[in-house]
């Protein structure tokens, strides 16, 4: 790997120019996965045949002098909740352990159309429910920066894969921070685009009004490349947005941050945040000030309702979305001895009890309660109101500021099992990422420092609805003037 380029942008260019062969890139990446991943557990399985065949086609086309796509030969990991024809897609759940996808997710199809090579599926918390990847029924994923540390979640496998150079880009999904938080914990860059910018067709749903297909990479530049290849309206997704302007070309337009007004909402930059993380944020702020940014102290009072609102809405939608796993049509069907003569309702109850892990069952029960008759006005409906209020506050802030800044996660990577018995404490780990999810706005996490014991720290930048380009631009400028994103773990 020493002489081969490692960023997606550089790989694609080298392959387009015939300097490297796509087949060699794929072979090298698969070799590295074989060497490194048994210990790390980032990939649940690889799509080696698919990737090699795709690479061979690219090499032939290159030889024939054809113009290759902007992702030519870029190997891409995809989260286990995104469908790829003929490959398993389990969403980290025993429920779908034997499920094989009959079609490819729109977002991944578009990457392949642009020359991307899907390399394998990455581990995740079951149905995206978790912040550590520990709820996966498939395997344990370790943080490349410390094998006793969690990689974050739910896109923990994607974050670990990028951090360990197993692929330059890994696709994830972000419902309440599931791309940004693992990116922060594994020292890589992660983007949650504007809700609806990347189509969801083929993404196994957790909470439909919040789910975003996102990605993790080493640099903002690679994320811009990724975003341009998979953004745009999809007839199969009624919530997808009209095709936007590409963002990659914006990155070169800015050398510094002059003229940029950056808001620092108090509620996301104080209470409950580890002092080392706060200090790292302050340091980044002063670097950005040096680059010409103007900083504005501001308030987002509704942020205190964000975690409860998020958990009520997300679980209510999850209880609904996961109702399809009933042991009847596909997926796990209980073979419990009590069955036999019993009715289908019992098959469903037993299959769900066996197929879902404890965290998923907890959230289904929470969501069922929050949306049930007599309670939904008190919980679900109020959560919707809180969401609306938060959206309005964000809108107001974006009249004064171009970007809002906060740490991505209140702490650096925890150890396995930390706060295992205190789900509410774990839910608070999402406090800084769920506001952008509820508002549907784009947010990026970029590495900005490390703790004294070497754990990465992430910085989050949020932009106005549809202004993904600005978040990427800010991160790109910051990365032009810092090296945190280039720090690699010792494997």
């Amino acid at each position, binding site marked *: 790997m020493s002489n081969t380029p490692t960023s997606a942008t550089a790989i694609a260019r080298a392959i387009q120019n015939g300097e490297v062969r796509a087949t060699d890139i794929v072979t090298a990446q698969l070799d590295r996965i074989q060497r490194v991943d048994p210990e790390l557990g980032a990939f649940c399985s690889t799509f080696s045949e698919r990737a090699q065949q795709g690479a061979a086609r690219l090499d032939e086309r290159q030889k024939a002098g054809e113009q290759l796509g902007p992702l030519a030969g870029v190997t891409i990991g995809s989260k286990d*909740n*995104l*469908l790829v024809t003929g490959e398993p*897609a389990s*969403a980290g759940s025993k429920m*779908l352990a034997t*499920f094989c*996808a*009959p*079609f490819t*997710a729109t977002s991944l199809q578009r990457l392949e159309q642009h020359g991307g090579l899907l390399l394998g599926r990455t581990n995740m918390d079951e149905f995206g429910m978790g912040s550590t990847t520990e709820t996966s029924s498939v395997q344990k994923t370790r943080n490349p920066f410390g094998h006793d540390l969690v990689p974050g979640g739910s896109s923990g496998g994607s974050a670990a894969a990028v951090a360990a150079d197993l692929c330059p880009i890994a696709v994830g999904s972000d419902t309440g921070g599931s791309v940004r938080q693992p990116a922060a914990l594994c020292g890589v860059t992660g983007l949650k685009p504007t809700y609806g910018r990347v189509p*969801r*067709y*083929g*993404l*196994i*749903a957790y*909470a*439909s*009004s919040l789910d975003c297909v996102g990605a993790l990479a080493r640099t903002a530049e690679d994320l811009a490349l990724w975003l341009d290849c998979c953004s745009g309206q999809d*007839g*199969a*997704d*009624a*919530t997808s947005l009209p095709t936007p302007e590409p963002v990659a070309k914006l990155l070169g337009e800015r050398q510094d941050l002059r003229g940029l007004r950056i808001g620092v909402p108090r509620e996301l930059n104080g209470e409950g945040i580890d002092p080392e993380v706060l200090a790292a944020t302050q340091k980044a702020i002063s670097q950005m000030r040096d680059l010409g940014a103007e900083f504005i102290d501001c308030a987002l009072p509704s942020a205190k309702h964000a975690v409860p609102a998020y958990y009520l809405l997300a679980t*209510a*939608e999850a*209880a*609904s979305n*996961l*109702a*399809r*796993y*009933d042991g*009847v*049509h*596909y997926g796990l069907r209980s073979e419990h001895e009590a069955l036999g003569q019993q009715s*289908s*309702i019992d098959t*469903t109850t037993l299959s769900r009890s066996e197929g879902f892990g404890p965290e998923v069952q907890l959230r289904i029960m929470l969501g*069922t309660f929050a*949306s*049930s*008759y007599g309670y*939904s006005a008190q919980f*679900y409906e109020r959560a919707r109101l809180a969401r609306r209020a938060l959206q309005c506050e964000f809108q107001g802030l974006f009249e004064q500021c171009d970007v809002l800044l906060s740490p991505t996660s209140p702490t650096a990577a925890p150890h396995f099992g930390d706060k295992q018995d205190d789900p509410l404490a774990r839910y608070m780990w999402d406090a800084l990422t769920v506001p952008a999810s509820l508002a549907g706005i784009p947010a990026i996490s970029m590495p900005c420092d490390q703790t004294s014991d070497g754990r990465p720290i992430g910085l989050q930048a949020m932009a106005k609805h549809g202004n993904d380009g600005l978040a990427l631009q800010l991160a790109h400028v910051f990365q032009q003037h810092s090296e945190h994103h280039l720090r690699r773990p010792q494997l």
Partner: protein
Amino acid sequence: MTGYTTVIGLEVHVQLGTASKLFSPAPVQALGDPNTRVHHVDIGLPGVLPRPNQKVIELATRAALALGSEIQLYSEFARKHYFYPDLPKGYQISQFDLPLALGGEVPIGGDRTCRLHRLHVEEDAGKLTHSAIGTLVDLNRAGVPLAEIVSEPDIRAPKEAHTFLHNLREVIRFAGVSDCDMELGSMRCDANISLMPVGSDTYGTKVELKNLNSLKMVQRALEYEERRQTAVLAAGGKVLAETRGWQDELGESRAMRSKETAPDYRYLPDPDLPPLVLDEAYVAEQRSKIGELPEQRRDRYRQEHGLSDQDVVALAQDREVGDWFEQIVASGAEAKAACNWLIEELLPTLRERKVELSQSPISPAALAEVLTLLKTKTLTQKTSRLVFAHLLDNDVTATQAIQDLGLGKIADPNELQPLVDEAIAEMPQAAVAVRDGNDRAIDALKGLVMRKTRGRADPELLDSLLRTTIAANS
């Protein structure tokens, strides 16, 4: 019923006649092997999303407008949750607190009308078949678009329920929204019925009736339930809130399940579907596509053609029959004759042969030609029927049919004269009787000529030739 007022409400599901399903590209077809009309979306596979079919909204909007309902420019799809093997997603996509249309009314006989509560769009579930090897699931019907039409409890008699459904079906068919075939399941009806003491304004306990597969069954089941509840109340008992299934062959209903505890469907706005936002221009466009409704058409036929009530009702029974009638008239036939032949000859014949009107082997123009030939006396009542029968089996014009059958009327005196002479020669005493003033004796001579010509002789010409020949022979 003595002492009690009957209160009936109806809930009607009408299948919206689209080529594909409500949220998937799978085709809608009543027939087909199980699970062959199924897309990933209909199975509720992981990762799929519903994609709304615009045509469904158009048809539902037209149905609502035709029923006089008010279109809600902002409506929403909601998920209705329950676990059942015929419901692959664990929820049905329907509409809840923000339906597509509110209000409207349907005439129920005399000058009475039944108000409509609402009309909303929803998807159908699959079908279960219980067999020896277990319960089988067929998802061909899963995701088929339906309009659910809910009445207010304004109906006071089983007969009115029948009239309601008849009139509703007529309007929906006219609006081109659905064929409303209860046997094929493209129209389904659940009824609820309760009794309250005459003069009371507090409704009694409702019983819901299911398994009503025809208009007659609806009426019979309600009549039975009316008697049953009356008997229960008269005996001092209490009517139980329950769902009862109608067993038509037994002529009675059986309790299916109690409704004392309502299920919690946990309705949620469907986060996969943006709110349905329409504008006035859209509504106006859909209104313009409805065309004439049955009542308007009946009025027009009365005025334009002077047809009787019985005729216009028969002609306006569905859009196609009326359209056919108008085409016959447009081809030059008289309205009354066109009506008679269509209603009394063509439709019964087609029914007998199990052929749809749209597939009729006789075109409106061909039928009009028969009627014209009849009017100009080229054909007689009798020969016209022979031509009609010939046309049913042969793709020819009426003129050609007359030639094929050798049925042209003999209106040429030179052709008819020898036959007249022959008849007088064969029945001289009849000719004498006529000459002696017994006018009825001429019928025997006419009959003879008609027999010889197989009815083709022009009756008037024959009459005059007979008379002049007899007179000349004297």
